[in-house]
């Protein structure tokens, strides 16, 4: 197989004497490092590194953080358990069990609504699929940490009361 205009064999560029001697190259590298060090020491305000967790980067309003479930005026979930989000979810991380609501005007509601945050890929398709604007990813929470896997499976109550505290 050959492609017109392309050499069939790629020949490795030969190192020059100074390159293979290493010493000059090491000095060049150290010079770059030193340049950054001096510049950061002189202009500390322009340092690209953030002093996390004391300081945090600003994210745009459309940043997709941890999900939350929206509430109706009476505090019950807005979700009607239509399963659009769990159907569209590419990671299959949303599990909903639907139930019969006593109010015939609402009719269907989620008995359970769990999201496995470890499986979630934060693509935001669930938000987009939701016909009731019941699930949003606008909390801005991106620090999702726990010391056991079970804690990452969050339930309806957690999602309805999703505060800015990152701990699970």
């Amino acid at each position: 197989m050959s492609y017109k205009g392309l050499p069939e064999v790629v020949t490795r560029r030969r190192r020059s004497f100074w390159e293979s001697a290493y010493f000059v190259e090491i000095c060049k590298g150290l010079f770059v490092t030193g340049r950054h060090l001096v510049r950061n020491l002189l202009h500390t305000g322009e340092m690209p590194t953030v002093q996390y967790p004391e300081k945090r980067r600003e994210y745009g309003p459309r940043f997709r953080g941890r999900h939350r479930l929206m509430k109706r005026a009476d505090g019950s979930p807005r979700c009607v358990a239509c399963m659009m989000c769990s159907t569209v979810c590419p990671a299959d991380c949303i599990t909903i069990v639907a139930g019969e609501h006593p109010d015939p005007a609402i009719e269907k509601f989620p008995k359970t609504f769990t999201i496995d945050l470890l499986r979630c890929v934060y693509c935001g398709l669930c938000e987009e699929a939701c016909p009731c604007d019941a699930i949003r990813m606008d909390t801005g929470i991106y620090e999702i940490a726990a010391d056991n896997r079970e804690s990452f499976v969050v339930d309806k109550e957690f999602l309805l009361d999703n505060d800015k505290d990152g701990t699970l």
Partner: protein
Amino acid sequence: MATLTIDGQLITVPDGTRLFDACREARGEDLPHFCYHPDLSVAGVCRLCQVEIEGLPKLTIACNTTVRDGMVVQTRSKRVQQAVQQILEMHLINHPVDCPICDQAGECGLQDQYMAYGLYESEVAKADKVRKAKVQVIGPQVILDQERCVLCTRCVRFCDEVTGTRELGIFNRGDRAEIGVAPGRRLDNNYSLNTVDICPVGALTSRDFRFQKRVWLLRATPTICPGCATGCNLRADHEGGRIYRLVPRRNDEVNGPWACDLGRLSYKDIHAESRLAVALARGEGGLESRGWQEARAELFGLLKPGGVAFALADPRQSLEELVLFKRLGLRLAGEAQLAGGIAGEGMAESDGILLAADRRPNRQALRWLELPEIAPARLAETLRGARGTLLVFGGDPFAHAEIAAAAGRLRVVYLGTHLNATARAAQLVVPLAAWAEKDALWVNGRGRIQRGQRAVAAPGAAREDWRVLADLLDHLGDSLDLPGLAAVRRLVAQELGLADLDVLNRLPVGGLQPELPAKAPTQGE
């Protein structure tokens, strides 16, 4: 024969054919419709199947028109499309569009039609819609939502024409018109769930299936109803190893497009608490669970030729299983100590529509295989003085107190699906697959062999019945070479005396009514 032109295509159909059916044949798909159903009378109320016929000034509905020789019909012209779009808009004026909470979403006529002919810009504000009653429980199986109804009257016609019970009707007029139950009545007949199937929208929904699963997540497997000797063709809709509903499959030779509620709810047994998932053997503290190898060794120990007092099967077992069981029974117990079931069990009234008097799916197979049924009293008498092992394959003979009492001194080996009275009294219980968990053949009361496929996996260590029986036969030295189900079916064909041994491996979708040799006459239902 009439030759007509549909969308520029010449087509010849028998005289008297409905234009609707001719259009389906020519187009390869149905015309948009709600009210037309091939098994019900024509109502012509939804006005969706409009077509343009040359020579007629106005559009005509195809469902209420009979074909005429030389007809020239347009089904996709601009005029037709515009008409369908306008009619669909009319249908949707008062529709609540609550698809997110509607169980019909995904298999809804309105949704399908709207994708093809939608106007997409509603001229009616949601607040101006006529509100009607929602979540009306109108019977033990059905919930009515009057807002979603498009008044196609399919359900009304079904109750008038198929069941003859006439529970439903249309009440009031104009935009107040609604489907309702006749005063003082409930939609309480054994076929009420068919109204849910034929409802093109989500007005009638099943109470059993309600909110259990979204329909697009379900996978379908063709099965046969285990409820009675009719053997209705069903489709098992399942997901994640669970069956969520059974709906009828059309088979004009057996059940048409219908199935009874009793049969449709028969899937509940499969997921019952009492399903056996592990082998059990009697130890010091009663029944204890056993690994498959241990149970197998114990099974071989208990079932020795000459040591088996009686072998009893059940007409709820499939044709292949009964053939293998007969072979096994003859080897272990002999012809006099072998029965295919308890006589008279599962006999009730027929309802004259689909539900047969014989509530067992495979009694006809027992007749074909000449496996006699035994009366409970006679079986009790036979067992009373006997010693050794009682082999029970399916069913629950110990539900009869006299049999349970008479078998007190026998060691019972139970091959079955549920932890019932027989299993509780057994020395060894081997878990088997239930009807929807195995690929099996069933013989209905009219002698039609039908194949039900495996919809879900059997729980735990439960195995397909034929594998257990073939394993036993192999151990007993019956040198049958049965590497797979196809080989078992060849054996069945041989047992039935069918000329073509592979005929059961190539069963048509609708089943097969074989011509059997004279020795096994087909009896009534």
